[in-house]
């Protein structure tokens, strides 16, 4: 019985230590990549501000972008793991094709996830992204 209590105490302490180490590593990685909390809140504020002036379709695209694209392209679409999406020179058809088919080894295909309306909404949002 005593050994089980000792084991349970260890079992409670070990994940706490591991998770603390993990979160510390995350902090280091975030600061290395310049994603500190101040930047994140500024980005969120500017994204919210942008949503206010967007049309209905673009706003719907913005919501889809935040849920599906922001973790690679960045909350403000300025690029992170994926490229900056401001001032895109591609045609609507080319953007739609890229969203549907993805890029091998770089970007997944969204064909099963987005219907034509979703893709149109995303394109409408991407067209609002100008410097």
């Amino acid at each position, binding site marked *: 019985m005593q050994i089980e209590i000792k084991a349970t105490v260890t079992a409670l302490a070990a994940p706490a230590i591991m998770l603390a180490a993990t979160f510390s590593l995350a902090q280091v990685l975030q600061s290395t990549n310049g994603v500190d909390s101040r930047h994140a809140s500024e980005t969120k504020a500017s994204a919210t501000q942008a949503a206010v002036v967007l049309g209905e379709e673009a706003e719907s695209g913005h919501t889809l972008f935040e849920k*599906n694209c922001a973790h690679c392209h960045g909350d403000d679409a300025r690029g992170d793991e994926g490229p900056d999406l401001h001032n895109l020179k591609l045609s609507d058809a080319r953007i739609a094709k890229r969203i549907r088919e993805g890029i091998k080894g770089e970007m997944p295909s969204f064909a099963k996830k987005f219907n034509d309306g979703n893709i149109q909404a995303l394109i409408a949002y991407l067209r609002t992204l100008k410097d």
Partner: protein
Amino acid sequence: MDNSIWVKMHGGTTHFPIALVMASVAFDLAGVIFPDNVDRSRRAGFRAAGYYTLLLAALGSIGAVVSGLVISRGQLWGRGNLAHHHTFLWPAFGLLVALASWRLVVGSRASNVAFRIYLGVSILSGGLMAAAGYWGGELLLNG
């Protein structure tokens, strides 16, 4: 270092903990369900297999977590499928480390009641791990 190396490393390392936790649960369950043989080696064998597969799963999960953090640039939560992935991943990782630590300390000296509680928690951990893997796949295939 090129980010694609970490992406490949994450793909390579994540499957070990998932498979090993499942295997550990299966071995431990087999040790409880199947009757022991005359020299009492069958149950001990299943438990030993469950023990080592769990320890390997816990060790493997460290590589998976580190490579995952590097490719998400330190994001602990994120949005969309990444958030779903993390919702299951962090509890699964915590439970896996807790289970491995418990088993490391208690060895083969656990009472039947304690071992059955452990088994229940390890089934939960396996389920969480599978769900984290599912959302990881969704993230890879559907963004």
